[in-house]
């Protein structure tokens, strides 16, 4: 019996009146876990019952603990008829299974009913006692920590990043079972909610098992999604990045230190991974489903994919870096090649991890959902995703990269057609956090043949860590390294225009860079960034089955191409040269396709200044026409100038002159677009660059271009005092105040029938623009402020309806400081947390390496035994590198050791003290819980992660008008979801949710029947944070000292 779950029902309040006669309620509670149910006594005639029940104890397997939610049902006792249900509370007990997370769930939780919404609250206490399980074949994975955050969580350090984990679970959708015809909507909704709770629990457990197998103890960047496939079923799938994390030990953080007495402890520290396989294993046994074998099963079409990064033509020099770079590449490649998918869902990386960025890789595929369905064999879905991942992998290779970062997957379903999409950023990573086997220290000692090599490789890691980008490109400032091209410039996979890096002048950079990751904190950026969106709407004919799928897949490449053109135009219009956080969403409906691309544009100092946009007409005969063109040209030029002013983009002009000689390119560059379909592959390519003109040229003889220009110019500028981005941080703004406001806004727009593409485009674009304008207006009291992590989601809920949902956080900042000390000091504060984190990490790694590797250079024999593809060059490269790196470490090692020692002592006191005060402060009243889609809270320090929040709710009404129409209905529902998230976080003892996202918001209505239904899925990480001001009271001195040291070190 590996676990005992205990629950106690304390009291209820604000219950609804269930007995009309007395205006009161006779409430009791059923507590259910698995198949066991307990009941409390009936508390008669009260809306605020005090049950004060005994402890209900469930003795269960830890597998069940992971899968099942605790289900609490509040009922009204009725002597004569059946008891009426008041509502339910599902409690995810996963956070209690990990001793580093929460220890108890205690607090007021809203009682939720799918028809009536929140109906009062219930006060419960839940605890779990875990017993040590020595069964090595166990199916549970208790203790693996999950984080939605797509970076290394703030109070942890990464010992190792293992790589990609994925899993999917399928089931029949209760809504589509035959029984649904005879049961009430409430019963059906509840069956669905419960099923999804179960499925996500199971999914999490299975992913956890994989992580343990790989030797990790945590999943970072955990992304779980639902595919509501209608009659063909319900798919819950998740991806994430397996890591080995270690809590930064300077935090004494409340009773969770490894030497805790709780029995659950032991299992976590020594993950009982079945030592069956090495490297990263996944459930797929035969992974090779190349895109070409696409029509194999059922029906599927792989869609041409766009690959891009730097564009341009010419560029020749920069050879000298070649061989060394290749060596480095191969060295890390060996670590990565073992992995089936070298993918990382992270978007922010520890310094020094991300070396080079190639560009965005994406793949889409259109599938027909099969009606026959066997829940126990999810192979079909697995195969689909496998196909796409293979494609992504090969795209990354084509870009000369061995890894894909900022990776994500999504679907769009309409009836039986499903578009699967995956995208990420091809990149080269340092081997610092990676290792060839699923090994950690203990294992290494036990497995002799591997020992030597892994110790050696760890040595490299430690050293790499100490010098970040110094190791290989030692002269390169860290702010530009990631921009340098990873591919061979003589063998570019597409026509690109390369120039010497404007920062270091040693390596080649592309003229434009698109990525799906967050802006690296060390990047050199000129001015500020802004949100850039491309929006597109395309009509399609109604069709069925294969014909429909074919039509969609024919449209997709055009859609993507146009989205990219729009993005590029808008980027140039803002005078910027790089996009971060690019997210392209394609949504399919019966009669149209919607495309929405969002990204944050910035001016990377390392990249060349973008050229302007030139308009050319093809029929120059008409004078008025000419005038028209020149007018437009003027407008565009004005806009560019204005934008440059607004975003403070003034790159040093001198750069141009100096660079003049070695680089033959003219000032304004033309841009080449490349849409490469996988059938026609890299060669048969339409050249869309309009020849080799100087500027980026738009020809307006065709209506499309006119439309493009209009689209360009109709984007209204953000009002004064506002900035916006869809990434975590806004370049150029760092001095955030602590005022944050997270919000969700949803709009549904009804279209008229028979619209042209252009009409549709305009409507869609206006819809997004107006939504943004509304947001600016709503949040005007927060000025100056930045809307961060603006996440748009589009959907076509039914014919002629467009739904746009936005979740973001508005953060105020101090204007004065921004203006005064500009980047320098700001950047420092921003990086502070990370460098600090890194500082300790480095220190520790070094110690580790020293103590555990008596023979760092080891015998190369180890390599072959691991089963990688070693070559003489591989070995050689790692050796050279090691020597280089080692030199650095020796030089800098001592400084670091002292600084981290210094820091270790004074902090704990202050932290625990402020934590205590924080707790007591909240008192009896409802505690404030902050929510943010970002991974941090400005002006505060996250001291503890309490576990993942993953909640799914359904709300239905058959009295839509009475509830204030669709808007009133959804407004209430979203507010209720927020309330429930806050309540659960508070019950875990937290005061904030970070990395919050609303991953699903499916809204369906039938106004004629006065009905509506909505499904919402939200997730995030529950945390405890402490204000920095409180911390600083006790620890100002040592902290600032350390920061300086580390900054100084970084600079050399």
């Amino acid at each position: 019996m590996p676990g005992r779950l205990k629950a106690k029902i304390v009291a209820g309040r604000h219950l609804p009146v269930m007995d009309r006669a007395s205006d009161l309620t006779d409430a009791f509670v059923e507590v259910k876990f698995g198949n066991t149910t307990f009941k409390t006594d009936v508390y008669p005639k009260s809306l605020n019952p005090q049950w004060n029940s005994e402890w209900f104890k469930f003795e269960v397997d830890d597998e069940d603990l992971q899968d099942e939610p605790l289900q609490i049902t509040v009922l009204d006792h009725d002597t004569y008829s059946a008891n009426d249900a008041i509502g339910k509370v599902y409690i995810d007990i996963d956070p209690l299974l990990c001793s580093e997370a929460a220890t108890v769930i205690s607090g007021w939780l809203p009682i939720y009913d799918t028809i009536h919404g929140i109906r009062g609250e219930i006060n419960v206490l839940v605890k779990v006692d875990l017993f040590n399980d020595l069964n090595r074949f166990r199916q549970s994975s208790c203790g693996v920590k999950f984080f939605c955050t797509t970076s290394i969580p703030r109070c942890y350090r990464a010992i190792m990043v293992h790589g990609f984990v994925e899993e999917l679970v399928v089931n029949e959708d209760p809504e589509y079972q035959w029984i649904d015809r005879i049961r009430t909507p409430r019963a059906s909704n509840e069956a669905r909610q419960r099923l999804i709770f179960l499925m996500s629990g199971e999914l999490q457990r299975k992913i956890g098992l994989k992580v343990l197998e790989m030797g990790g103890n945590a999943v970072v960047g955990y992304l779980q999604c639902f595919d509501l496939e209608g009659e063909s079923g319900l798919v819950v799938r998740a991806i994430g990045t397996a890591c080995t994390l270690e809590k930064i030990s300077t935090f004494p953080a409340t009773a969770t230190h490894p030497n805790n007495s709780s029995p659950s402890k032991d299992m976590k520290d020594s993950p009982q991974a079945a030592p069956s396989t090495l490297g990263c294993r996944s459930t797929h046994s035969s992974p090779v489903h190349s895109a070409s074998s696409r029509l194999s099963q059922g029906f599927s079409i792989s869609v041409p994919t766009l690959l891009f990064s730097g564009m341009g033509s010419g560029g020749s020099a920069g050879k000298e870096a070649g061989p060394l770079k290749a060596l480095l590449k191969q060295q890390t490649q060996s670590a990565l090649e073992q992995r089936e998918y070298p993918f990382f869902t992270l978007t922010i990386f520890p310094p020094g991890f991300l070396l080079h960025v190639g560009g965005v890789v994406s793949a889409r595929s259109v599938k027909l959902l099969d009606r026959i369905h066997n829940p126990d064999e999810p192979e079909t879905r697995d195969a689909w995703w496998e196909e796409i991942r293979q494609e992504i992998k090969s795209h990354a290779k084509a870009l000369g990269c061995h890894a894909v970062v900022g990776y994500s997957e999504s679907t769009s379903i309409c009836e039986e057609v499903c578009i699967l999409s995956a995208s990420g950023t091809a990149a080269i990573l340092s081997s610092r956090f990676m290792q060839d086997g699923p090994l950690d220290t203990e294992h290494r000692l036990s497995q002799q043949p591997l020992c030597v090599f892994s110790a050696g490789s760890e040595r490299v890691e430690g050293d790499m860590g100490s010098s970040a980008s110094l190791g290989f490109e030692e002269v390169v400032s860290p702010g530009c390294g990631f921009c340098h091209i990873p591919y061979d410039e003589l063998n570019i996979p597409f026509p690109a225009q390369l120039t010497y890096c404007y920062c270091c002048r040693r390596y080649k950079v592309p003229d434009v860079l698109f990525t799906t990751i967050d802006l690296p904190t060390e990047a050199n950026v000129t001015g500020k960034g802004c949100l850039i969106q491309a929006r597109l709407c395309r009509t399609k004919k109604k069709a069925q089955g294969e014909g429909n799928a074919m039509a969609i897949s024919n449209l997709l490449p055009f859609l993507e191409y146009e989205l990219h053109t729009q993005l590029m135009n808008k980027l140039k219009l803002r005078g910027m040269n790089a996009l971060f956080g690019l997210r392209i969403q394609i949504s399919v409906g019966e009669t149209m396709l919607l495309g929405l691309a969002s990204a944050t544009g910035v001016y990377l100092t390392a990249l060349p200044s973008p050229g302007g946009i030139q308009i050319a007409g093809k029929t120059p005969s008409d004078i008025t026409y000419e005038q028209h063109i020149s007018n437009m040209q003027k407008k565009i030029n004005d806009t560019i100038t204005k934008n440059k002013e607004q975003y403070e983009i003034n790159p040093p002009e001198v750069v141009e002159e100096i660079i003049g000689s070695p680089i033959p390119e003219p000032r304004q560059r033309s841009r080449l677009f490349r849409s490469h379909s996988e059938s026609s592959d890299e060669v048969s390519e339409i050249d869309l660059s309009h020849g080799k003109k100087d500027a980026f040229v738009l020809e307006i003889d065709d209506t499309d271009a006119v439309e493009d220009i209009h689209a360009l110019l109709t984007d209204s500028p953000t009002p004064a005092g506002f900035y916006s981005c869809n990434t975590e941080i806004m370049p150029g703004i760092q001095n955030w105040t602590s005022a944050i406001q997270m919000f969700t806004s949803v709009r549904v727009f009804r279209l008229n029938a028979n619209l042209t593409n252009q009409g549709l485009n305009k409507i869609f674009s206006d819809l997004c623009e107006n939504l943004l304008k509304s947001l600016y207006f709503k949040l005007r009291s927060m000025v100056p402020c930045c809307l961060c992590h603006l996440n748009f989601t589009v959907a076509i809920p039914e014919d002629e309806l467009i739904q746009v949902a936005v979740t973001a956080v508005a953060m105020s900042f101090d204007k004065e400081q921004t203006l005064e000390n500009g980047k320098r000091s700001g950047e420092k504060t921003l990086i502070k947390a990370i460098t600090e984190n890194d500082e300790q990490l480095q220190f520790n790694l070094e110690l580790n390496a020293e103590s555990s590797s008596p023979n760092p250079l080891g015998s190369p024999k180890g390599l072959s035994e691991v089963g990688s593809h070693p070559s003489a060059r591989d070995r050689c490269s790692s050796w050279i590198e090691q020597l280089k790196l080692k030199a650095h470490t020796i030089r800098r090692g001592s400084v670091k050791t002292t600084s981290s020692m210094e820091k270790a002592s004074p902090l704990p006191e202050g932290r625990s003290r402020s934590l205590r005060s924080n707790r007591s402060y909240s008192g009896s009243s409802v505690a404030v819980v902050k929510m943010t889609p970002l991974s941090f809270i400005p002006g505060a320090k996250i001291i503890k992660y309490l576990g993942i929040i993953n909640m799914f709710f359904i709300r239905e009404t058959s009295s839509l008008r009475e509830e204030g129409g669709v808007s009133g209905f959804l407004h209430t529902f979203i507010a209720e979801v927020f309330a429930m998230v806050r309540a659960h976080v508070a019950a875990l003892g937290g005061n904030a949710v970070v990395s919050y996202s609303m991953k699903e918001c499916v809204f369906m209505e039938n106004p004629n029947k006065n009905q509506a239904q909505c499904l919402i899925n939200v997730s995030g990480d529950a945390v405890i944070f402490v204000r920095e001001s409180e911390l600083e009271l006790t620890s100002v001195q040592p902290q600032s000292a350390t920061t300086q040291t580390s900054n100084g070190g970084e600079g050399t």
Partner: protein
Amino acid sequence: MSVELDVFVGNTTIMDKEVYQLWLNGYTVNDAVKVRIEGGVMEECEASAEVLLSDTMDQYRTFQMCERLLHHPAKLANQLLFQIPPDRQAMLIERYALACQFNSLDLVIIQFQTFICISLFRYYAFDDSFVREVLGKKLSKGTKKDLDDVSIKTGITLKSCRRQFDNFKRVFKVVEELKGPLVENIRQHFLLPDQLARDYAAIVFFANHRFETGKKKLQYLTFQDFAFCAGQLINNWTVGAVDNMMEDMDVDLDKEFLQDLKDLKILITDKDLLDQHKNLVCTALRGKTNVFNEMEANFKNLSRGLVNIAAKLINAKDVRDFFIDLVEKFIEPCRSDKLTSIDVNLYLTHYTNSAHILDTFKHHAVWTRYMGVIKSCILRMYHD
């Protein structure tokens, strides 16, 4: 082409004070948008009418959702739907002051909390002109139906009239059954500030006894006059007034006291006593006022008026006419004799005190209790 659905939900609820006031005043969304446009918010924030409409609708929806909570303000403290923390207004303001010095984030939240309190006050605030119309009327459906006339007469939108009326009714229903001091009950259940709670107490008290306030002769009296008088009655003539320990209702007049009032009749039925009383008063007043003659001439008349009012109060029907009686039997005669309020004060003081010197008059306690209220009411009501 139309926006079918449009919502905005923040983790901390955003409310616009200006729009809130418009909503309370019963403006429709479109009218509110017009007012806002005229207010110049568009130029300030580079917004369009469309944006303003969307924002206004959204705010109205939020207020409607909050309305349920505003009806039971005590629940506001621990409700979870809106992120609106602590309950006590005094504490809020205290913390507000503290936060000003410390932390700007808490400041935002506390600002919001105080705002909620302010919103609460605003929600429960009423127009004097409106309340004057319904004061003393039964808070029933019938009265509610007549609100459109009231709306036309006062120029307050019907929506706003209804809200105010419903507020009265809600408070009435809740405190009707409660024991203990009326004002305190209202303050606790509806978290209202002292003055507003007192006003509500007056409204409840008037509605309970159905005091006549609508007669033409009473039109010159304002709500505040009546509220003052109600306060006097509540504090002196109810059961709770005599014995704080008694857990009885504050809404009803002390029956025993009303019964005892009948004994005061002796002051006018016993001819000797009446003459004696007159002589005492006249002796005290002589030379102190220039309307002495009128006072002397009118003494018996006025005394009869006041004592008769006292004697009749045992009948619920006559209680309703309390104010009209005061005006007809005392204020009007005094006014026609051109007495100033100083004269009236002087007269009533001596009138009250002299009775205690009368040999055969034994009901001193009742007399004091009665005349104290009568005197302060009359003085308050004695104006143009």
